[in-house]
Structures are given as C-alpha cells and as structure tokens.
C-alpha cells in the first residue's frame, strides 16, 4: 500500500488458533495489514471477528490453548534492523524490549493494567525503569510530566494516589500515561473508550488524537464503533471472521466502501438516518468460528453473492481494487457503482 520506509508494522497472513476440546478455532485466519509511521490504523469489526486476538498476537500475548500457527509480524524500528516478532523466543531479550518498550498496549477496562495495591506513581515509574536507563528521580519526573500531559490536574499529588481513588476516566488517562511513558513507537489501544461514558469517551478520544500528533506515535486502535473510527483514525481495516476484508484510508472507506460487509455495517448504523426509516440490516448473524462457510466467508449474508463463484474454493485474497484501496471481494469492481 505504501513505500516500505513508511511502514512501521507489517502483518502478513497471520493465523492464530485456539485448540479446544471441540477442535481448532481459527480466531485469526490469514489477516494481512500494515501500520504506517505516525498514523492511526483502526481495526473495526463485530464481536468474535478476531480483532482483539490480532492485537494480542502482535505483542505475543496469546496463551495456551491459543497459539500463532502461521504468518509473519514484522516491526521496522527507525534506524535499526527489522524485528520479526513471530520468530522471537518466548524469553528473548528482544521480546521484552518490544513488549512495553517499543510497543505498548492499553485495554478496555483500565483496571486490567493497574495494580490496586501500588500507587499510580510507582506503577508509571516501574514501566520507565524497566525499559529506560534512568535513575528513580528521573523516572518520577517523567511520570509527573506524563500525568500532566494526559490532562490529570495536580499530577504531583496524584502520584501518591491509588487507582481506587480515581474515576474511570481518570484511570484510563493514567493507563495512557503509563503506556506512553517509554516513548513507544506503536501504541495498541483495545476498545479504549468502550467502558466509558459518552462525554468521557469524547475527552479520551481527543486526548489520544492530540498525543498521537504531538508525539508521532503510531496507533493500532481496536474498536467495534465506526463513529470512533471516523473521529480518530487515518486508516481503517474491516475484519470479518478472522480476516481483513477491506483496508483503506478512513474517509475513502466510510464514504465509499467497496466490500459488501463494510457497506452493510455502515448502512445499519442508526445515527445516519434521521427519523423512523427502516434500518437496512445485514441478514442472518455471524456464524460460529467452527462453522466458517466455504468460499467467501461472507457469502451467506451477502446481497451480491453469485452462486458457483462466491461460495466455492478458499476465501478471496485481499487485493488492490483501486489506488490505495484493498478489498477481499471477487466482485468488488462489478458491484461498485
């Protein structure tokens, strides 16, 4: 999609499966996308599409019975040789350096990443001391600066507070401060505002946007909300049943989607239609991951399905259907008007 020097993280044919009693569940089944330097890429999809498992795979956080079974994840740090994350040993120094250092992550529920028994300051300092060659004093100064930067009033006093003394919105700000304290090249945000109220969500999204453009960090934003995508991301990848079905710059995709699933998602949003017109909806529901249909996985729900073409063989490849636009649909050009 872009020049190679422009790309920070490249994911090719990623496959992550969970081996359960019922058999292999292919949560991510050949996902391909790339994140450009200094930009926000959103991966959007409905529950069970594999977006979170993709994020966890990038940090190698998949636990048994789950395992990455195929594909490559390559990080291109500035001025250093590329790192093949999939090839790193479980205990390698490089993996520790990547996890929390070069790539950090924030979660939907801030208490996932906060310890209830350590002060906010200690937790941010710990992250800094672990990854940067600085003294305790310096780490503390950086924690104060970071808390100020994420809009927490009175950062010196907050340093001594515990997470339970903070509101949900403040906790998420602390987590963002912690994640950015080590100057990561990539921030992964997994549904960072889903647990927050509307107005707090608006504040946190504005914060992520400001920090991103000030610090130049790349962001991988995982979300189910196309509104959040439109207001935050530069690029967007739509995921369905473990695969990316469309990837494009955000305005292009939201104004003129090329994959029928992306079209369906956008049309079924209630906020777009005023008054009580009937909402166009995607028929049926997402099938279980153990029953992925043959051919194009979306074909049973697709209004453009062509028998004999869409329902046989393997899933269609993600391919360039227009300049700077990828879609995994055999009929993308035919159905585009």
């Amino acid at each position, binding site marked *: 999609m872009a020049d190679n020097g422009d790309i920070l993280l490249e994911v090719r044919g990623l496959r992550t499966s969970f081996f359960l009693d019922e058999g292999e569940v292919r949560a991510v089944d050949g996902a391909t996308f790339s994140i450009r330097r200094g930009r926000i890429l959103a991966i959007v999809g409905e529950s069970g599409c594999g977006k979170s498992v993709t994020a966890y795979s990038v940090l190698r956080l998949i636990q048994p019975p789950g395992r990455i079974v195929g594909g490559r994840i390559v990080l291109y740090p500035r001025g250093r040789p590329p790192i093949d994350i999939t090839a790193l040993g479980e205990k390698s120094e490089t993996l520790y350096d990547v996890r929390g250092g070069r790539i950090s992550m924030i979660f939907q529920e801030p208490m996932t990443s906060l310890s209830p028994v350590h002060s906010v300051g200690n937790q941010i300092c710990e992250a800094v001391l672990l990854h940067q060659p600085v003294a305790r004093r310096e780490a503390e100064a950086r924690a104060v600066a970071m808390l100020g930067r994420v809009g927490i009033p009175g950062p010196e006093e907050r340093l001594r507070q515990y997470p339970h003394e903070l509101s949900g919105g403040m906790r998420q700000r602390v987590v963002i401060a912690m994640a950015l304290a080590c100057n990561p090249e990539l921030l992964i945000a997994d549904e960072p505002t889903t647990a927050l*109220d509307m107005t707090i969500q608006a504040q946190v999204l504005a914060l992520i946007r400001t920090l991103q453009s000030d610090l130049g960090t790349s962001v991988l934003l995982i979300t189910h909300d196309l509104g959040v995508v439109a207001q935050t991301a530069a690029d967007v990848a739509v995921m369905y049943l473990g695969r990316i079905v469309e990837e494009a710059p955000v305005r292009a995709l939201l104004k003129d989607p090329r994959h029928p699933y992306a079209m369906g998602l956008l049309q079924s949003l209630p906020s777009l239609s005023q008054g009580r017109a009937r909402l166009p909806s995607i028929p049926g529901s997402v099938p279980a991951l153990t029953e992925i249909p043959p051919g194009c996985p979306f074909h049973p729900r697709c209004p453009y399905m062509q028998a004999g073409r869409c329902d046989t063989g393997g899933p269609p490849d993600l391919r360039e259907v227009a300049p700077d636009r990828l879609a995994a649909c055999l009929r993308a050009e035919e159905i585009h008007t």
Partner: protein
Amino acid sequence: MKPAQPLLRVTALSKHFPIHSRGFFSRQVGTVRAVDDVSFDVAPGETLGLVGESGCGKTTAARTILRALRPTSGRVEFALADRCVDLAALPERALKALRPRMQMIFQDPFSSLNPRMTVGAIVGEPLVIHRMARGRELEDRVVDVLRRVGLKGEHRSRYPHAFSGGQRQRIGIARALIMNPALVVCDEAVSALDVSVQAQVINLLEDLQDELKLTYIFVAHDLGVVRHISRRVAVMYAGRIVELAPTEAVFKGALHPYTRALVSAVPYPDPDVRMNFRLAGEVADPAHLPQGCAFHPRCPDRHAPCDKVRPDLRPLADGRRVACHLHHKP
C-alpha cells in the same frame, strides 16, 4: 399535537437512597438523590427516549415508575381502559393485577434469561404466574409470540445457551410481549448488541410497536439509537431532567448547555463531521450535589443565580421544556 389523555403521567417523582455510616450504631449520614423531582407525560403509542450518562438516574427512574422500586415521593398516573391509577400509591396486591400492562426489556441478554429454563418456560412464565393461561392455550400463545419476534415455534424446547445475543434479546422481547402490555420500558435494550444485529432488533421493536400499539420508554446512553427510535427525548443529569423536547430539536439546537455538550460528544461515523466536545470535568456525584444547578461547576454559560438557585424544568413558548437560568428568569 398532544392527545388529551396521556398513557403515563409522572409528576414530581423522587427516589432517594439513604447513606448509612458503618458500625453497630449505624445512622443516616446522607442521601443519594438518584431521582429528584422528575415529571413527564408519555402519550399512547409514543416512544419517549430517556438519556444520560451512568449514574444520572435514568434506570432508577424507569424502575421506580414500574414500582420495581418504591418511590420516595411523587405520582405515577397510569391510564387504564376505564380509569386512571396512581402506581406510586397502590398497595402491592392491587399492583400485581396491573403488572401485565407494563413490562420491561433488559440490557444483557446473557444474564436476564435463566439458563436452566427452556425458552418456552421463560416466555410462558408470566402467563403462569398471573394464571392467565395454561395447557394448550399457554403453548399456543408461546408459539405465537415467538413467531412474532422472528423465532420459530420449535425453539421453545431449547435452552438460552443455544442462541446468539440477538436471538436472546428476541426471547426477552417475547417474554415482555406475551402479557399484551400497554407500556414497555426498554432499558438499554440494544446496547449490548453488535451493529448488524442491533439494526435487526431496532426494526423489530418498531414493527411490534406499530402492530400492537405499544408505548415505549426507551432508556439508553447511545444518542444515535435514541435519535432513530424516539420522537421526544428527556435528558437527565444528576437525577433530574434538564431538557425535554422533540428529538430533532435536541440534535439541531439543544437548549441546555449539558444537552449541547452531550450531543457534541456523539462520534459520527463521518470524518467530515468533526466531534467538537469542549466540556471539562466529570459528572456530579449524586451524594454530594453542588448548590443551585447541579451542572453549574462545569457549565460554560454559568452566571449569577446558577450556584444558588436550582432551576426548575419549565416550558418555553414552543413547548420545549428546559431547566436552565439562561432560558428562564428566576
């Protein structure tokens, strides 16, 4: 526009919870005014949206109206075929006879259905409790209502775990509708559903409303959904209604500064409509409400009377109601 007789008239409804100190000699040390002096009408066949952020009292208000909670004060007049009753003052026994007329649909389709009961037993249970049907007739009514909500008759012998989130929500809707209610409170009824399934369930709720002449109170935090489904909307902040107006008026030009902020926080799925949210701070703590208007510490338009005099919800010339000193002289 407004019919003479509303189905529901809520007047000065309040629900306060005491805060007790710890220990053996526990005494009351404060009050949470979860719902405070709330008034509105709902016309038959209408959908009223009730919106606000967590802790604003919208769910407590809905539950108090249905007498799942006993109100601290106020009246809830509910119109029956031949008379009007005050639900707030009714003894339990008399209330039970009216329960079939008002039903609730819950947010979480995973926790609101008993996993040990078949779908048929779940949906038919209200009829059994109220001794309204049994045997063959019960069976027929269950099958009929399941079909109405887009499920199949044979689904009644299965258990909830065999259904997806959207289907479970349909089961919850079937259970509410089998009593032929007049009023249905939908408490975040589509919030937990994925976008594609959410659209299906919204369509279903609207179809059922037309067919069965249902009246909805639609409690939600998602303004996009509310804009679609309701003609009028009541916005709550810290236990009180701050604005009550036609939905499009609220979206195109809200009167209350809080409503304006809330509308500006909606992330539109269009990169050319930029979110322009400027409100600092967080929602007021209902146990320690500030004097005067509860919103004044965050309000960009606060002026002299706001930190002393609490504004009442009063109508303007065009019928919109707002509780703000900008629009009413105290």
